[in-house]
Every structure is written in structure tokens, then in C-alpha cells.
């Protein structure tokens, strides 16, 4: 195929040469070229190998509908499956062809073509069954994956995308003739309008063809320029170019992707695409039409192209891919290609039309006659032949005689379809047009308006009245545009889906889906085998399941199926169109919500101290908490945790508890509210005292726990678990607003306003005395579960005497800004008493020794306070609280509920593990009745052996008995079921 440049072009800058590499060879194109147009300029048409048969494939179209010309962009993180027909070239671009080995010219995989008679629809399903299941995973699948497919996955991809939200009255999709007319009528109206165009330039058909000769007595290009200027100058119409609407959701919500680097190499670290999320009152679809191809033998050979695409290359890219193409059509849409060729001083080698001479438009007839173009009416192309490119075609003329024509390019037109993809995504309904042989939008489901060829108006005669009629719901200007055309005015098409091959052969292939290598034979076979529903047929044959979604071929498949089944096309129906319209990268969807912005990190005010002091962090919700502190690089986690825990038991430890949720509750009815939210009763509680409290769901299950400080009946401070803080506040707000709006109560999160230090251990009192010399820490003055407000060096602090370790302990609450200073002070005065920081793991170990639960670890949303043995915390005299009634439901008073117990190995040297099942028998014989499982398990240096908490059926009454813990190696470990408290059972240390 020899192409020529047509120097007259406004979009290609012929003075600006651009070099790029395709499969390692350097070529030149011009500024404005797509990969496809640049390759065609260099007379390259073999650009890839097909999915299944590895057949040579060329450039078939000039736009987003491209099924064949998919390439890998090596210079952009090796981005695969890029459509060569839309991606613009830039200096230094590196491109590779796909699915070939070792080279595009000599592809080993093309041997598949030889075996193709057996690779029919369902081949894989039927063939790769045996002899053993493992064969699929280990042999067949890896082999098939190697042989079939598209590009290779990209490497180290780190695209950056922004999201932009729009909220407008009207969105016009498509900046072609109708889109511009619609936008024009909205100029300076009271509507916010968004005009979205996929290409770099507005104009659509005006730029892509020579169909229109004059608009309002002006050259179309001049009219276009003026109109665009008018729109750009208007106050209310915004234009988005290089933006493709991919998704049309419910409630007129659109998603569009904008390419920010059209014609340039994306700069690393810069936003390379923008995802527009558009909410709109009305959507006006002006997204035009797509040309169909035709099926005949070897309709996939490089050198075959859609006729409107050929014309688009001429008009938009200043390039005629061939000097003398043959045109094969069954409709009037290809008329303008003949006109364009002749206008450019070229002429078709032959014009083949399946329609009879009477049906062919008279002005086309004249044009062909005048220029001595060989004309074949009532004729069909039986096949195309050649080696890796088209060399000749076989035409059956009206007399049935066969004519061989040598040619290097064949342009096809099988009719046009409105681009109904977005319309059907919006749930609009389609209707088959028997005259125009295509599905057209009929009933919109949302406020959707379709204009122009997108609505099935393939003629221009009703242009004004159509736009005016459909836009009459808006207060906008009436249009009165005069169009003059170069070619025919009435769209005319004759039914033709497929031409059968001249010779019957197992190797003769007429493709229906180029990207997935589906032939018309596959469709026949699927129907014979019973897959005659269109959705089944699609999946069985993989027809229209490629990245192009069968844009140029799916209607042809429906036509063939309807003929085979002898049904109307409307009865066959279409497969459902799902978003996105064209592939959308995950990086665009993710936007900025990735990497360091995926989830915010929350840090305590002491975080930098932890960093300096060997803290290893764990994630708790969004918080970074010190897990344990390494005193040197060689210390293992186990050693660190044991050291920290022993130090708390023997000396004193300090934990950064700033991440605990803190909620302040105030108001006249705060007491009543707290009584309703928590299980405990706060009425008789003294001011200045604190209480461990449980919060239930309405189902009676434990949702959260914490310590409630009562400042007065009108003022409480509650702590929550680190992870539960937001939920607890949300729950309080919900009940305050929805169930008890009569209560005067307010609540607010003060989690980040206050840092919390938990100091505990036998030497704590000495440390506290030294750190806060003005406060009396004696047992009488400062008893267990009380709190006091103090001022220290001008800093207001609150000290609560409570403990989560079982040792004497205090919690200090300090305004976050002053916290580091006080933390440092405590560290320095505590040194002589052996004070050391401990992390969350040691805290977990210490609390488990005391049998304190962690909500979410020892409970899982199916555990009541009674199951935990915490009935004493339930304010039974209270009339009501969250979940109270559920505690007496038949299900919650069952005796065989899973209940919290302690577990120790019968042989103290044995190890236990979290998640182990507790069973009754030593031998594991299936089925094994499982009593429950271990929820927390640690090695305790204090005890000298492993111990665990577990929830097991009827656990409370099993205390004192023996059971077994199953292991992953199918053996069991003998265990004793004990009370869930392993240390200082009578709380002597706590209250000392």
C-alpha cells in the first residue's frame, strides 16, 4: 500500500517532523499524526498479530472503534493495548507491536492459523478437560496464556490522575456538527453548559469528511472557526477537549476521562489524566455514528479499511493511505469517499456496490462515469487475497461472473450505526429500524436528548427542526442553519451482512470480530450447539468481547443471527452495553487516593520521640502506634515484649495511649443519656469517679468498651477503643438525634485534643510523686477509679487512676501541644525507678494476664456481656439502655452460647496459638465438633508458660475441665479450661 501526503491540511503541521520508533526501527511523522497515520505515511500497514490465529493485521479504522491496531507504548511504562488510531505521536516515542514472536513479520504463533479448523468456538472448553484437573492449571493454561492475548502488562506504572467534579444544567456529549449547533443555541442562555469532545478539535464530520460543502453560505471550516469562537467567548458554555465520556450512570451522572498529554510524552510526576465526574440536569448525546464493516473471506487482511476512516485520514490527517483503493459498499455513506478521492486528484480503482444501478445515487453515478471508475453494481466481493497484505480481490458481478482485481487497498462500508453505547448505559431503550438496518434510540429513561446521527438521523434535511424540537424544553435561541451538501442527501442501504466464500474450505475465514478472531462460522456453530440466545452466543464465541467491544461488528453479528434463526433483529435483541465505553485505566479511577494518600496516617503527639527511641509501629485503624521498642537492633520482638512486660510487673512502664478515643458529653440531660447509651448505671456514681463501661448494639452484642469519667451529672468524658472512636461518637449522635431528641445533650470528639499517657507498675506512685510534686498520690487521697484536675507548670492536666495492666496505674490527659514536654519530664524522673516505654504488644500481654478483653479481638459481634462474664456491669435496675431487651431474648439466654474462658496448656511446655479450635477429643476424627476457638494467646514470662483466652460453647460451666486444642498438623494439645484471669485475681496490686 503506497500512501501519499495531501499537503492541504489544517491539523497536520508538515513543517514539524517527528521521529519515533516502531519495533526498533526509526520513522518520521508530523506533528498532529496519530501512530496509525504516521505508520501509514511510512507505508506500514502490518501492525500486529491477531489474538487467536496470529494472523497479520493492519490498521482498520481511524478512531476509537479500532479492533486491530493495538500497540504497546514502550516509552510510557510499556502501556499495552493502546489504540494506534487515537494515540498521537511525539518526538522519541517508542512503539512495539503485540502478540508476536520472534518478530511481527515472522510470527511463530501463526502456525495456529494452520490448525485453525479445530480452534472453533468452544474449543478450549471442550478440549482441555483431562486427563486430570491439574493439567489445566499447570500445563494448558500457561501454554494458552503464552500463545493467545494482547500486550504485556506494563512495568512500574505510576500514572497520576486528578478528579474534577462538575455540576451543570446541560452536558453536550460530542462536539460535531450537532453538538456545536446545540451549544450554539445555548450561548448566553441561563444554563450552565458543558461541551465534551473526544478529539483535539471540535467539528466532527466537518473535519472528517467532505460531505458538507457550505454552511450558511460559508466554507464549513470558516463557519466552524466562527462558531467555536462564539462558544468560547460565551459566559455559560465550557468546552472540554481530548475528553471521552466513558460512563453514563443513573441520575445523569457522567464520567469522562481527559488526556492531558495529547501529542506529548507524559511528564513523570505530573497529572497525565483527569477524571471528570459530571452531574447534569440534561444530557444531550451528539456522539455520532460508527461505520460497520462487512464479512467476506479474509476480510481481515492488512490493507482493508473502513471507507469513512479512509476519508478521515484524507481530511483530518492529510494522508491518502492508498492512491487507488477499491471501494465496496452496500450503502450511500461511502459516496463522499469517492468525492473526496476525486477532489484530491485520485480515483478509486473500482467501485463495487451490492445495490442495483437504480438504487445508487444519481450524482454518485455521474461522478463515477465522468471519471471512468470501473463500476460493479449488484456485485459482491467474494474474498480478498494476499500475503500479509491485500494483493487482489475477487468480485462477483451482477451476471455471476468472477472478476479478479489487483489492488493494495480496499475500503469497506457496511452501513452506519448511531453510537448507542452511552444511550443504553443510561438505560434508554433501542428500536430496530428496518429501513436503515440499525438500532436507534427510542425511549430515553433519563432526561436524555439525542441529536443528529446519534439519534439515527442520518440525513441532514431536518437538521434545524430536529434540534429546535428537541431543545424546546429549554429557553434557548431557535436555530436556522442552511446546509449544502457535496453528495447525496438521503441515506440508503441494502441488507448485506456476509458474503459466502467462493470455495468451501476449512481454512476460509470471514471474520465477524476482528479483535477476538471470531468468524461467521463460529456463530453458526454456536447456534447449532444451542447457544442461540444473543447473550449466550456472545460468551460462547467471545464475539464483541474485546477491548473494542465489537464497535464495528456487533450489529453485523445480530444481522447474521437473525437470518440464521429466521427472526426479526428486534426479537434477537442486543447484548447489554456496559460502561466503560472504552478502556479506562485504574490509575484514572484511583485518582489521588493512592500511595501515601490512600488512607490518612494519624500520629500521636509523641510520635517523633517513638521514632528516636527504637519504636516498631503497628497500624491500629489509621493510627501508627508503637508495637514494641527495640533497645538494640538485634533484639527480637519476643524478647522486647517480654522485657517490657516484666519491667511493668517489677518496676514501671509508660504507654502512649493518645490514640484512645475520647468523647466529651455535656448537657442538662447528660446523665440520662449516658445511662441509656452504656450498660452501666451512672446515677449513683460520685462526681470525680470513673467506671469501666460497656456499649452494646441493639442486638445485645458488645460493640465497645471504655472508661467513663463523671465530672458532674451534666458533664462526662468517655474513652473508647482506638478503632471504635468514630463509630461510638456516630452511635451517640444517632441516638441523641433520632431516638431521644428530647434529651438536651451534646457530644464532641476530643481524641486529638488530648494526649494520654498510661503509667503502670509497682513503682508508679514514686514516679508520679516526683513528676508532679504538688499532687498527693496516696491511696486515701487518690483511690482507684477516681480522677482529678490539676495544673502543672501552667498546663491543665487530668489524672485518672486506672489500669489496663493489673498494676497500680495512672492515666494522664494533657493538651496535645504540651504533651511532649511532660512526656520527656516523666522519662527523666522515671529513669531511677527503671521506667521504660512499652508498646501495644506488651499491653496486650499484660491485659490478657488480667483477663481484660479487647473488643474486636476477644469479641466478634456475637458476644454479649453475659458471655464475657461481665453481668455485673449491667445496670439491671435501669429501665432501658441500648440493647437491654436483647439480653433476655431466647437466643441470648441460651446456656450453650460461646463464653469467655482462660486456657492453659496441660503440659506447661506446650505452645498455643491464636485461632486454634478447642475440641473435646484427643484424636481428630472428622467431623470434629468444635467448641470454639482461642481469641488471644501469649507467652508470659511472669507465668512461665503460654496462656490464652478463648470463647467456647458453654464455657463458664466447663471451667476446671480438660479439652484439646487442634493444631494445623492435625495433632492436638491438651489444655486446661480455667477462669479467664491469670494474675492477681483479687486485684490487690490494682488498689494498693
Amino acid at each position, binding site marked *: 500500500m503506497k500512501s501519499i501526503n495531501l499537503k492541504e491540511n489544517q491539523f497536520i503541521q508538515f513543517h514539524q517532523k517527528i521521529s519515533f520508533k516502531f519495533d526498533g526501527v526509526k520513522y518520521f511523522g508530523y506533528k498532529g499524526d496519530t501512530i496509525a497515520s504516521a505508520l501509514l505515511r511510512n507505508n506500514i500497514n502490518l501492525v500486529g498479530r491477531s489474538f487467536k490465529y496470529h494472523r497479520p493485521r493492519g490498521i482498520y479504522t481511524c478512531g476509537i472503534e479500532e479492533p486491530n491496531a493495538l500497540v504497546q507504548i514502550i516509552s510510557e511504562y510499556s502501556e499495552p493495548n493502546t489504540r494506534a488510531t487515537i494515540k498521537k505521536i511525539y518526538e522519541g516515542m517508542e512503539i512495539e507491536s503485540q502478540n508476536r514472536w520472534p518478530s511481527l513479520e515472522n510470527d511463530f504463533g501463526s502456525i495456529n492459523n494452520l490448525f485453525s479448523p479445530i480452534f472453533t468456538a468452544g474449543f478450549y472448553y471442550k478440549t482441555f478437560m483431562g486427563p486430570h484437573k491439574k493439567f489445566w492449571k499447570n500445563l494448558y493454561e500457561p501454554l494458552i496464556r503464552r500463545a493467545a492475548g494482547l500486550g504485556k502488562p506494563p512495568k512500574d506504572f505510576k500514572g497520576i490522575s486528578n478528579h474534577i467534579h462538575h455540576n451543570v444544567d446541560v452536558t453536550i456529549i460530542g462536539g460535531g456538527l450537532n453538538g456545536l449547533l446545540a451549544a450554539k443555541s445555548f450561548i448566553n442562555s441561563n444554563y450552565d453548559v458543558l461541551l465534551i469532545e473526544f478529539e483535539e478539535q471540535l467539528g466532527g464530520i466537518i473535519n472528517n469528511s467532505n460531505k458538507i460543502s457550505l454552511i450558511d453560505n460559508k466554507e464549513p471550516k470558516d463557519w466552524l472557526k466562527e462558531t467555536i469562537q462564539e462558544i468560547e467567548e460565551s459566559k455559560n458554555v465550557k468546552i472540554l477537549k481530548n475528553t471521552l465520556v466513558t460512563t453514563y450512570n443513573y441520575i445523569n*451522572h457522567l464520567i469522562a476521562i481527559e488526556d492531558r498529554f495529547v501529542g506529548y510524552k507524559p511528564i513523570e510526576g505530573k497529572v497525565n489524566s483527569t477524571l471528570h465526574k459530571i452531574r447534569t440536569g440534561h444530557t444531550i448525546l451528539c456522539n455520532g455514528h460508527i461505520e460497520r464493516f462487512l464479512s467476506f473471506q479474509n476480510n481481515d487482511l492488512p490493507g482493508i479499511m473502513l471507507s469513512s476512516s479512509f476519508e478521515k485520514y484524507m481530511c483530518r490527517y492529510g494522508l491518502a493511505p492508498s492512491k487507488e483503493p477499491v471501494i465496496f459498499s452496500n450503502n450511500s455513506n461511502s459516496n463522499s469517499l469517492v468525492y473526496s478521492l476525486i477532489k484530491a486528484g485520485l480515483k478509486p480503482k473500482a467501485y463495487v456496490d451490492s445495490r442495483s444501478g437504480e438504487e445508487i445515487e444519481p450524482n454518485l453515478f455521474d461522478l463515477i462515469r465522468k471519471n471512468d471508475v470501473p463500476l460493479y453494481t449488484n456485485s459482491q466481493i467474494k474474498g480478498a487475497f494476499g500475503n500479509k497484505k491485500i494483493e487482489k480481490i475477487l468480485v462477483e458481478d451482477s451476471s455471476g461472473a468472477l472478476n479478479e482485481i489487483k489492488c493494495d487497498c480496499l475500503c469497506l462500508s457496511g452501513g452506519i450505526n448511531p453510537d448507542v453505547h452511552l444511550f443504553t448505559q443510561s*438505560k434508554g431503550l433501542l428500536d430496530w429500524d428496518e429501513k436503515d438496518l440499525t438500532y436507534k434510540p427510542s425511549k430515553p429513561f433519563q432526561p436524555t436528548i439525542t441529536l443528529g446521527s446519534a439519534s439515527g438521523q442520518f440525513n441532514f434535511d431536518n437538521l434545524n427542526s430536529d434540534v429546535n424540537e428537541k431543545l424546546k424544553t429549554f429557553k434557548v435561541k431557535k436555530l436556522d442553519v442552511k446546509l449544502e451538501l457535496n453528495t447525496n442527501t438521503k441515506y440508503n442501504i441494502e441488507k448485506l451482512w456476509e458474503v459466502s466464500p467462493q470455495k468451501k474450505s476449512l481454512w476460509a475465514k470471514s471474520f465477524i470480530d476482528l479483535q477476538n478472531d471470531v468468524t461467521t462460522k463460529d456463530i453458526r456453530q454456536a447456534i447449532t450447539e444451542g447457544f442461540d440466545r444473543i447473550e449466550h452466543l456472545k460468551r460462547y464465541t467471545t464475539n464483541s468481547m474485546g477491548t473494542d467491544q465489537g464497535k464495528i461488528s456487533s450489529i453485523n453479528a445480530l444481522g447474521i443471527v437473525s437470518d440464521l434463526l429466521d427472526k426479526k433483529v428486534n426479537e434477537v435483541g442486543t447484548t447489554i452495553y456496559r460502561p466503560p465505553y472504552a478502556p479506562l485505566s485504574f490509575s484514572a479511577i484511583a485518582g489521588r487516593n493512592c500511595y501515601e494518600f490512600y488512607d490518612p496516617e494519624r500520629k500521636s503527639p509523641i510520635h517523633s520521640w517513638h521514632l528516636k527511641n527504637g519504636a516498631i509501629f503497628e497500624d491500629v485503624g489509621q493510627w501508627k502506634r508503637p508495637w514494641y521498642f527495640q533497645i538494640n537492633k538485634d533484639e527480637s520482638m519476643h524478647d522486647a515484649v517480654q522485657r517490657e512486660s516484666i519491667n511493668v510487673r517489677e518496676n514501671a512502664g509508660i504507654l502512649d495511649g493518645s490514640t484512645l478515643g475520647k468523647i466529651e458529653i455535656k448537657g442538662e440531660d447528660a446523665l440520662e443519656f449516658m445511662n441509656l447509651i452504656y450498660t452501666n448505671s451512672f446515677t449513683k456514681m460520685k462526681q470525680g469517679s470513673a467506671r469501666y463501661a460497656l456499649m452494646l448494639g441493639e442486638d445485645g452484642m458488645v460493640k465497645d468498651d471504655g472508661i467513663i469519667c463523671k465530672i458532674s451529672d451534666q458533664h462526662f468524658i468517655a474513652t473508647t477503643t482506638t478503632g471504635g472512636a468514630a463509630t461510638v461518637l456516630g452511635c451517640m*449522635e444517632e441516638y441523641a438525634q433520632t431516638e431521644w431528641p428530647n434529651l438536651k445533650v451534646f457530644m464532641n470528639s476530643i481524641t486529638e485534643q488530648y494526649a494520654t499517657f498510661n503509667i503502670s507498675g509497682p513503682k508508679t506512685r514514686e514516679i508520679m510523686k516526683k513528676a508532679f510534686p504538688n499532687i498527693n498520690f496516696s491511696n486515701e487521697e487518690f483511690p482507684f477509679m477516681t480522677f482529678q484536675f490539676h495544673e502543672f507548670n501552667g498546663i491543665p492536666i487530668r489524672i485518672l487512676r486506672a489500669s489496663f495492666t493489673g498494676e497500680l496505674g495512672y492515666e494522664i490527659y494533657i493538651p496535645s501541644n504540651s504533651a511532649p514536654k511532660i512526656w520527656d519530664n516523666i522519662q527523666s524522673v522515671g529513669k531511677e525507678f527503671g521506667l521504660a516505654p512499652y508498646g501495644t504488644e506488651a499491653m496486650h500481654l499484660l491485659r490478657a494476664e488480667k483477663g481484660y478483653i479487647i473488643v474486636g479481638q476477644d469479641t466478634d459481634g456475637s458476644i454479649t456481656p453475659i458471655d464475657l462474664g461481665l453481668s455485673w456491669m449491667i445496670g439491671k435496675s435501669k429501665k432501658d439502655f441500648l440493647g437491654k431487651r436483647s439480653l433476655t431474648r431466647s437466643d441470648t439466654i441460651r446456656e450453650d452460647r460461646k463464653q469467655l474462658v482462660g486456657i492453659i496448656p496441660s503440659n506447661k511446655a506446650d505452645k498455643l496459638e491464636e485461632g486454634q479450635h478447642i475440641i473435646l477429643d484427643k484424636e481428630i476424627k472428622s467431623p470434629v465438633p468444635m467448641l470454639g476457638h482461642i481469641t488471644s494467646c501469649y507467652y508470659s514470662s511472669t507465668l512461665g508458660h503460654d496462656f490464652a483466652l478463648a470463647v467456647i460453647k458453654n464455657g463458664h460451666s466447663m471451667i476446671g475441665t480438660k479439652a484439646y486444642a487442634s493444631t494445623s498438623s492435625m495433632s492436638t494439645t491438651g489444655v486446661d479450661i480455667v477462669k479467664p484471669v491469670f494474675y492477681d485475681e483479687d486485684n490487690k496490686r490494682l488498689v494498693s
Partner: protein
Amino acid sequence: MLIINCPYCGPRDQSEFSNGGEAHVKRPDGSKEIGDREWGEYVFIRANPKGLFYERWVHTHGCRKWFNCVRDTSTDEILVTYKLDEKKPNLNNFKSVVKTPSGEPEVGSGNFTVEK
């Protein structure tokens, strides 16, 4: 993907809100004796109609206020929002946009995009 009209703040993006399930479900008075069944229904049973539905929402990343709305569960369209202390609107005041609300033809499954 909705714009939700918060009765306190005005129209805002759906991502600012959280759904709170069926609205106008009265919590039984805890001080009165009620049976397991009645309480169980309050805790576990909610309506799930196709079509118009009274629903609760909360403006989580906004004013944190709870409010009620009428949503068409088949189209996701929120037809009206109102404050908790306002009377619930009569559902007869709203017309479903199409007869079969998901937009599928009356005959056949939702998979058809062709008018039957």
C-alpha cells in the same frame, strides 16, 4: 451516584453522606414489657421494597445531622429530603418515572436494551 439535598446544608455530593436504612422505624419503649418477636422485628427486620422507600441518611462529612428522605430504590433517585421532626410525605405524591422502575421493559429481564 447522587446529589443529596441535606435539609440543613443544601445539595451535596453523595460521598459526604452515609445511609442509615429504613426510616420511621420506632424503637419500642424499653420501659414496657414486649415479646421476643416484637423486639426481634425491631432489631433485625427492615423493609426492602423495589420502588419508593422512606430512608434515613446522615451528613457524616458535613453537619453530622440525621434526616429522612424518600428514595426510589429502583432508580436511586432521592425524591425529597426532610428533617426528622417533619411529617413524612405521602408516597402517592410521587410518580415513579417509568412503569417498571429499573428501566427494563415490562416483559423480560433487565438485560434487554431493546423495546419489546
